[in-house]
Structures are given as C-alpha cells and as structure tokens.
C-alpha cells in the first residue's frame, strides 16, 4: 500500500505511541528494571519460596479448572442462546455480562456469604466450599463466565447453516455434524475464550480474597502475596513475585497461541 489515502496517519500514530509508551510501557519498564536490580540469589530465593509455589499451584489449578468449566458451560450457553433462542434470551444474554460489570469485591463478598458453611448454598453441601481451594475455583468460574460465551457467540451467529444442512442431506447424524462440521469453525474462538478466562483467572484478586480467607500455603493466591509484601514495604519482594506472575501469564498465553495451529494467527488477548 502506498501513501495512506486517509488523513491523520501520523497524528494518530504519534498519539497512540505516546499514550502506549507513557501509560503501558513506562510502568512495565519500571517493574522490570526494579526486578533486574535484584541479585540472582534473591530472585532464586523468591522463586523457590514455598509459599509462592503453593500460591502459584493453586492459581494454576483453580485457573485451569475454572477456565475448563467455563469453556464447557460457556459454549453451552452460547449455543442455547444462539440456536434455541429461549424465551427471555435477550435478558439472559445481557446477564452474561454481569461478572464483567460487577466490581470484583462485590462478587467476592456475595460468593463468600453464599458458600459459607451456613450460607444459602453452603448449608446444603456436605463439604466446605468457602475458605478452601474449592472456593477459589468457584470465584474464578464466576469471573470467567462471560469470556467464552462472548467469543463463541459471534462465530455461532455467523456460522453458515448451509454446511450443516449439506451434511444432513448427506446422511450424517447430528452428533457427527456437530463434531465434524461445527466444531472446527468454533475452535479458534474456543481457544481464545479459554485463554482469556485463564488470563483473567490468574490475575484475579478482588473476588478471590474474600472467599479464600487467604490461609497461608492453603488458599493464598499470588496477587495476595504481592499485596502483603507491599504492606511490609518490601517493594523488591513484591516486584519479584509480580514478575514471576507476569512471565507465567505471558508464557501460558503464548503457549496457547502456538497450540492453536494456524500460521500467524494471533490469539487476541482481549
């Protein structure tokens, strides 16, 4: 493409880069540089801290499990909303966005009250949910709910019915059609939705800290460890944990992006 035909290229490029640099890259640089000021033994010690490792393990396990549940039910929801259009679908569709719009703290205290041993749901369950890793899992499911639905929905809406009809004419059974004709179209969206839900889950703070009770080595999450370091004015410690968390998130997302085969297809993070 030659000279841009529309006005404002240089202006918008300049503004965008300036904003990006000041608001995103500068703070990130501050984080990285601070972490770099630590000596390798310090970094190693921080990375091997049993408390951090326990927290990371919990985050990853709960995060993956929650993203998986959201993958399943999110797809189901999107399918039901798009294909079956039940009564009140508009309202339900709007509701899906609630975890996104609701402040995480509100979600946190609400979920805690419900799943507490004497809460609305907790009293019916033979096992404890609040104040256990299971509680963390529940909170992450809530938080990640919209992501898969919202990435799958547009794909389903644009799906050409002719392909399914052609397969049906050729005699394929419904499960087979879903597997061979519909699923391939959905794959990129499923990957993206899963990645988004997972990314959100790994960094989640507000909705988790209430229901988890933050029991050391049991129900702590990495963001909480960062905050507790900060409360003790240990900026370096907090930074190290933050960088480890960032690296982990980026690595995971990158891995997901590569897994989703397709030359040069970027899984948009947002």
């Amino acid at each position, binding site marked *: 493409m030659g000279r*841009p035909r529309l006005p404002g290229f240089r202006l918008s490029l300049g503004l965008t880069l300036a904003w990006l640099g000041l608001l995103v890259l500068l703070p990130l640089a501050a984080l990285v540089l601070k972490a770099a000021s630590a000596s390798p033994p310090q970094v190693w010690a921080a990375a091997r801290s049993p408390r951090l490792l326990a927290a990371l393990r919990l985050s990853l396990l709960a995060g993956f499990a929650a993203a998986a549940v959201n993958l399943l039910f999110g797809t189901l929801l999107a399918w039901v909303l798009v294909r079956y259009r039940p009564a009140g679908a508009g309202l339900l569709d*709007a509701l899906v*966005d*609630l975890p996104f719009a609701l402040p995480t703290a509100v979600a946190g205290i609400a979920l805690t009250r419900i799943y507490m041993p004497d809460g609305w749901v907790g009293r019916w369950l033979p096992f404890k949910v609040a104040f256990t890793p299971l509680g963390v899992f529940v909170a992450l499911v809530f938080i990640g709910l919209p992501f898969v639905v919202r990435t799958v929905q547009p794909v389903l809406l644009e799906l050409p019915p002719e392909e399914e009809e052609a397969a049906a004419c050729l005699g394929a059974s419904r499960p087979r059609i879903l597997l061979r004709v519909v699923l391939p179209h959905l794959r990129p969206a499923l990957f993206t939705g899963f990645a988004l839900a997972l990314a959100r889950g790994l960094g989640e703070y507000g909705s988790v800290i209430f229901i988890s009770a933050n029991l050391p080595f049991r129900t702590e999450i990495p*963001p909480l460890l960062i*905050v507790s370091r900060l409360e003790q004015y240990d*900026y370096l410690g907090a930074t190290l944990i933050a960088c480890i968390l960032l690296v982990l998130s980026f690595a995971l997302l990158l891995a997901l992006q590569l897994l989703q085969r397709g030359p040069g297809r970027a899984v948009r993070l947002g």
Partner: protein
Amino acid sequence: MAELARTEPRAVRVALTALALAFLGGFLVVPLAAVFAEALAQGWRVYLAALREPEAWAALRLTLEATLGAVLLNTSFGLAAAWLLGKFQFPGRRLLAVLIDLPFAVSPVVAGLMFMLVFGAQGWLGPWLIDRDIRIAFALPGIVLATTFVTFPFVARELAPVFQAQGGEQEEAARMLGASGWQTFWRVSLPGARWGLAYGVILCTARAMGEFGAVSVVSGHIRGLTNTLPLHVETLYNEYQFAAAFACASLLSLSALATVGLKAWAGRRRAAAMQTSRSAP
C-alpha cells in the same frame, strides 16, 4: 424419507437449555440476589442509614471522579488508536494491537504495583514529586492512572472494528467534496461510528467503576479520602459491618445492572451499524 438431522432432538434441546439456565441461575442470579438480600437483612432503615454515611458518599464521589478521569483519558487515546488500527495498514500493526491489549494480561494488583514503582515515595519520580508536593500515589491522580491502565484497551478495541467496517470510501467522498481532514473526522467518520464509541465507553466505565485490585494497591486505603466504593465495601466487610458493606455493594450492583442493560442496547445498535457498513451501501 427420514427426518433430516438439522437440529438436536427436542428432548436434548430442552435438557441443554435447562442445564444452561441452571448454570446461569446458580452462578449469576444467586450471588446477585444474595447481595440485595444481605443488604436488606436488617431492614430498610439500616440499609438507608448505611448509604447516608459520609464515608460512603466520599467513596462514591471518588469512584465517580476516578471513573470519569479514566474514561476521558481512554476515550481520547481510544479514538486515536482506533483510527490508526481501523483505517490504515502498516508494518507492525498486529504488534501494536497486541501491545494495546497488554493490560488485559496483567493482574490488576501488578498494575497497581507498577504505578507505585513509578510514582510512589520510593519510586522513580517519588523524590521529585515530594519536592514539589505533588501527590499521585495515595491520591486521586494515582487512582485515575491505575484505573486508566486497567481499562486501557476498551475504547480502542470496540471502536476499531467499526472504523474498519466503514472502509475508506465515505472519507474519500468527503475529501473530494472539499472537506479538510478534521472536518471529515468529525462530520463523517465519527458520527458513522458513534455506536462503537458508545459501546467502548460503556465497557470502560463499567470496568473502571468496579476496579479493585489496582486501586487497592495505589490508594493506600485511607478511609474517607482514598477509598473508592469497592474499597469501602472491603473495609466495611473486614470490620464485620456486613449490612453496611452489602448496602454499598447493592449500589454497585445496581450500577452494574444498568451498565449491562446499556451495553446490550448499545451493542445491538453497533452491530446494526456495522452490518449496514458491510453490506450494500
């Protein structure tokens, strides 16, 4: 001739719908209902009294100010970025899009930490700011910045596809008719994309109002001064003032519901506008 397998059998459809509704109800509706139930657990008078607390008002005001600041900043950025990404092709475009999406992959707490490292007393600009008695960390500017970071991509991401779907022909037509670049932008491009902008702004507002983790780190939790409403909810809850906490939470929930409704409405308008952009003129 056998019935073509065009959709699932009725029994399956009903079962799946019921399952989906149960999931939605269990995970969404129940917590939402719980907020209001808990808020009113001690009766209306306690509820209203909690809302009339001066600290609650201060928290609400701070939340609104921070949200306004973040939305204004991100809208001006979003307009520029969306114009760039939607109307032009250039090397590095994809990389730029990924960079703009970066805040989504960063935990809010980490975001707050990053700003503390720049503006905090021990941060890069710390001494410089203290000398000039400028407060950013533990004050409104810091909260605004942290919130802006967390909601950075929204306006750009939702506006860019609308700009892109417009193509460039209307702008070219405007140019041929003698309009300057700015006239073209304000009279032709932006009005044509107003629903994409509205949608992005709504998303940005919703997320900004509800932001917790980043603000928690940057604000210092100073009651009545630097507590946003979500932080205030946390403070009340930790002090076992449950009814009051849920009362404030109910306020936030109502705003969330309003947001969700607005989002659905604006989203429909945006989809319709993009549809007409893409199809025959």
